[in-house]
């Protein structure tokens, strides 16, 4: 357009329709701008959508992993995958794609336009480009290398800082300040050196664009100018040429960059696939007859675990014929969604538990459980006691299949837990783990976990039984108070009671309390225990504890030591027996005496 205008001006200044040309230029610019905007929105929008989908897939995949996986992968590593890796993939699909496509189009389009104006001049103008391209590429590689080196050194620096700041007590005690200073100084100086090395390369790299543009202009002036002088080319064509050439500058410089984005994106894609791929394998492993389509599950929960089948002790057969569906593809519908006829007080029938010759070892470690066999009758409360590391918690984890027990060792109502669909198995279990984990949400949400429609016990009642309701009422926003980093900080005991309420709210027929009162003070514990005894009557309860006060009212106490059952019976009998339990009981009494002193 500019060419036409100028040519027209030159040809016949008086009659040139300059106004029309000017309007046309604006029009074309608007069309160009809006179509570019449109394509940019489309591509960026798509890449962001893919990013969101990838993140959702990753999240869904992570949900299928057992604790074993979380033992092997740090939270930091997994977070990195959800942040930097996904961002890298987005860059690949967004910027990388835009850039690649526009580079190709720019080259093709501009070349065509330039050739149309003047083939010879095009050849001239492009002559320096291969060299410049090579130069840009070399620079780019070097920039990448040095950026990597600087980044690595920054990690070193950050490790130093972390090490000294978290070891500050030792630093103080040993007057290590000078050493820390020197050590940090070295790492800091090295980072400065590497950053400056990067800066030197980059300093030469960025102005390269100007140089490329300049050289292009130069060639056009010189060679094109000559053509104009010789009358082979119009002045307008020369100016237009110059403009076209400018379009090539950026893609040329950016090519190397684009390629490195593509490379990084592909690497990240692989890292993400590691996780989603592993999830598929995991699902496959679990799915060997275990993961079931949603349709069957409510039936089972209602029929099998909750009420049992009248007059039948056999396991629910429906599971055996259930099609196997990988967990990733079938969102596990929540079991408790099925309306529950019974309430907290009287589940119509509690199931019995049986551990049979159970030997179990965590990967690469000595067995945590040796040939453990015992039964828990329906509605019975059994306490598991024993020193730390005796295997109490492991039993709970295996029952809930957070770790996979060997086949034929753990049974609920005579059915191997490995054959019970995971979702219904867990829905029938109220598991209160030791750590008292709360989400950064309101207390009510922490208790209900979104099961609001399905809960057979109101959140408040559950909190009442757990002995936490009154304390919650005293918080500024009551049950709506948000806990966690940006909210209320609950004490360890309060947290444990909230998690207890969470389990009670589901009114599960089996309750597993894994040292659930470790942080609750003694007086409160009595109160909660008394509440609990009333609330859980008729349910099957497995109570792991090292506080014997909580254990001594159980129907039966099983004493574990180093993974073996060493004693079992009622409190009085065990105390009389004078074995491990008696010794533990004495220790407990001493502790209480000391506390009272």
């Amino acid at each position: 357009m500019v060419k036409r205008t100028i040519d027209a001006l030159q040809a016949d200044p008086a009659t040139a329709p300059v106004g029309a040309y000017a309007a046309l230029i604006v029009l074309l610019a608007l069309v160009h701008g809006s179509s570019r905007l449109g394509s940019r929105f489309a591509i960026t929008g798509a890449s962001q959508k893919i990013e969101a989908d990838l993140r959702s897939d990753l999240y869904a995949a992570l949900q299928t992993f057992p604790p074993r996986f979380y033992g092997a992968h740090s939270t930091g590593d997994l977070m990195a995958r959800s942040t930097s890796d996904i961002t890298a993939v987005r860059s690949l699909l967004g910027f990388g794609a835009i850039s690649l496509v526009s580079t190709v189009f720019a080259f093709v389009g501009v070349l065509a336009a330039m050739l149309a104006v003047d083939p010879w001049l095009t050849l001239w103008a492009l002559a320096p480009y291969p060299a410049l391209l090579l130069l840009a590429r070399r620079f780019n590689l070097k920039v990448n290398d040095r950026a990597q080196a600087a980044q690595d050194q920054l990690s070193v620096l950050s490790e130093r800082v972390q090490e000294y700041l978290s070891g500050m007590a030792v630093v103080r005690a040993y007057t290590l300040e000078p050493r820390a200073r020197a050590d940090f100084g070295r790492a800091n100086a090295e980072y400065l050196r590497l950053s400056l090395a990067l800066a030197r390369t980059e300093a030469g790299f960025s102005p390269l664009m100007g140089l490329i543009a300049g050289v292009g202009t130069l060639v056009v002036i010189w060679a094109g100018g000559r053509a104009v002088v010789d009358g082979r080319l119009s002045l307008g064509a020369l100016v237009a040429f110059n403009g076209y050439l400018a379009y090539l500058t950026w893609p040329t410089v950016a090519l190397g960059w684009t390629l490195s984005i593509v490379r990084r994106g592909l690497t990240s894609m692989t890292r993400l696939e590691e996780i989603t791929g592993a999830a598929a394998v995991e699902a496959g492993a679990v799915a060997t007859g275990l993961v079931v389509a949603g349709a069957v599950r409510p039936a089972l929960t209602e029929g099998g675990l909750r009420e049992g089948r009248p007059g039948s002790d056999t396991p629910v057969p429906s599971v055996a014929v259930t099609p196997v569906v990988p967990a990733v593809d079938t969102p596990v519908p929540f079991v408790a969604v099925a309306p529950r006829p019974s309430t907290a007080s009287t589940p119509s029938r509690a199931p019995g538990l049986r551990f049979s010759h159970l030997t179990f070892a965590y990967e690469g470690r000595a067995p945590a459980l040796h040939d453990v066999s015992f039964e828990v009758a329906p509605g019975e409360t059994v306490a598991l006691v024993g020193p730390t590391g005796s295997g109490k918690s492991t039993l709970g984890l295996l029952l809930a299949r957070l770790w996979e027990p060997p086949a034929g060792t753990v049974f609920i109502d005579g059915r191997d837990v490995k054959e019970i669909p995971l979702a219904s198995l867990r829905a029938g279990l109220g598991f209160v783990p030791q750590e008292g984990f709360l989400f950064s949400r309101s207390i009510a949400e922490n208790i209900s976990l979104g099961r609001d429609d399905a809960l057979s016990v109101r959140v408040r009642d559950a909190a009442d039984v757990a002995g936490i309701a009154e304390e919650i009422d005293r918080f500024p926003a009551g049950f709506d108070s948000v806990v966690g980093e940006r909210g209320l900080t609950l004490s360890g005991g309060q947290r444990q009671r909230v998690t207890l309420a969470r389990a009670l709210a589901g009114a599960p027929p089996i309750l597993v309390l894994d040292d659930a009162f470790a942080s609750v003070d003694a007086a409160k514990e009595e109160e909660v225990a008394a509440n609990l005894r009333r609330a859980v009557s008729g349910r099957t309860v497995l109570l792991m504890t090292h506080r014997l006060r909580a254990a001594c009212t159980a129907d039966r106490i099983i004493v574990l030591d180093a993974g073996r059952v060493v004693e079992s019976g009622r409190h009085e009998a065990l105390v009389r027996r004078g074995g491990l339990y008696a010794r533990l009981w004495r220790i407990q009494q001493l502790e209480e005496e000391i506390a009272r002193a």
Partner: protein
Amino acid sequence: MPESAYDPEADERLGRAFDRRLAARLAEAARPHRGLIAGSMLMFPVIAVAELAQPWLLKIAIDDHILKSEWLGLTWVAGLYVTVLVVLYVLRTVEAYLMQLTGQRVIHDLREAIFDHLLRLEARFYDRNPVGRLMTRVLHDVEAVSEAFTSGLFAVVADVITLVGVVAVMLWIDWRLALVTFSIIPILLLVAVYFRLNARDAYREVRRRLARLNAFFQESLQGMRVIQLFVRERYERERFGRLNADYRRALFGSTVWEASLYAAVEALGSIALALLLWYGSGRIVAESLTFGALVAFIQYTNRFFLPIRDLGAKYTVMQWAMASSERIFGLLDRTPEIVSPSAPSPRPARPAPAALEFDSVWFAYEGDQWVLSDCSFSVMPGERVAIVGATGEGKTTCARLLNRSYDVRRGRVLVDGVDVREWDLTSLRRRIGIIVQDSVLFAGTIEENLRLGTDGAVSAADLSRALEAARAGFVAGLPKGLGELLGERGANVSHGQRQLLAIARALVYNPAVLILDEAMSSVDPESEALIRQAMAGLLAGRTSITIAHRLSTVHAADRILVLHHGRIHEEGAHADLVRRGGLYARLYELQTGAAPA
């Protein structure tokens, strides 16, 4: 802008773009580099001239040579153009490097200053500030501050000079044409500011939602067991999906603003071009303007569009920088609470064992939750004392008060009869060695770890003697012996070996008073025996306090102090105390009872 996902929201606040007080502090920080800054500043006008020369040469080429068909002159102009191009490339490279050099040096110095300051801050400060947050100060906030120089100060100065130059040249070539072009500036400014402000708000929203998304993700990873146990996978996935979609929408919003800004500026550029052509051609017809001038004008116009477009981005960068520097200076302005007195009591270098005394000491970490209340005791030179008591009774606190990690609230702690607050801090800590058995080993070789806190005056023979005395013979068996590298937190030696190394380290450090804070964690029996032997050697001939969590190690003490409810409850030799049948006797029975029979 850094897309760091982990910044807590408190770190998300933007500062004012310019704050005089902070700017003064920043100027002070940059003072050592004023030569560099002045140097870079001097280059700007030169670069501006070189840049402005390009279109000018183009004009000359067109008007004086091409249109006049003067081939020789054209070559001459082309030569000049090459010169300008090369000079400009070199200048820009140097300038970019100088800017980075300044920025990186400021970063380096600030990092050093912050780390230095952190080393001087007291333990209480570390109780209240998580290491992660402090690391953000040292590592990331300083980067933002350096941006204040490179993207802020330098860029603004460079832009202003360029703008002034462009305006001046345009006015000089043809003031009427210049004014026509300038007519677009107000609209340009409005557009740039409007879109940029919206883009910034949108971007802030993106960061907020990303932070929320990542927090949720991280929490899910930590609470995955709860999610799985309560079969909440689908519910959580839906929640995550909502946050994910929120984030995507915000991201797209920011993309829209950003892309629109660029498109709008481009459109305005085309309008300006059209205006130029329309008005300019009229003038050319009237022969009051040359072709070359028009072409040069088109190029000049481009050069003032860019700085105005990016004005908003720079404004935002400045805001980040100011917010970061506020946090940094806030940290640097914190006065260390525990420092050496200005005139410490003169300490004759006394090789003799030291005496310790607690004189009615009151201490609380928080408010009036007294850990020690009116606690008094003394330790004779060369005496071996053990402090026992239930968990949380303040045993470890005594050690922390002795080396002034914390200061007493009331009363006095005396070392060699002098209040610790009158001691020179370094001499005090040199005299009192605290061994935390669960000790931190720093990244580095074993030898470096052994020499911690000593000033190189330790011979190799001393080292091997210490290792032998500490029963750390395993070191000799390592492939590289003393030169063996220890990983992060000494992860590649066993727990027991780490404790032996800590003892060896204390032997090398050779303090007059030794405070031994026993680890609670258990080690295998073999290491335990080794550790006990090593301890005995360590304590010989020194004043020592053993803070015993396991009573099995205190028999050998000359005197045992029983700490209960913040004061000394009982004291005496082991046998006496057991005979007395008081608190100690119970504690003792508790401990020995707890040991497996």
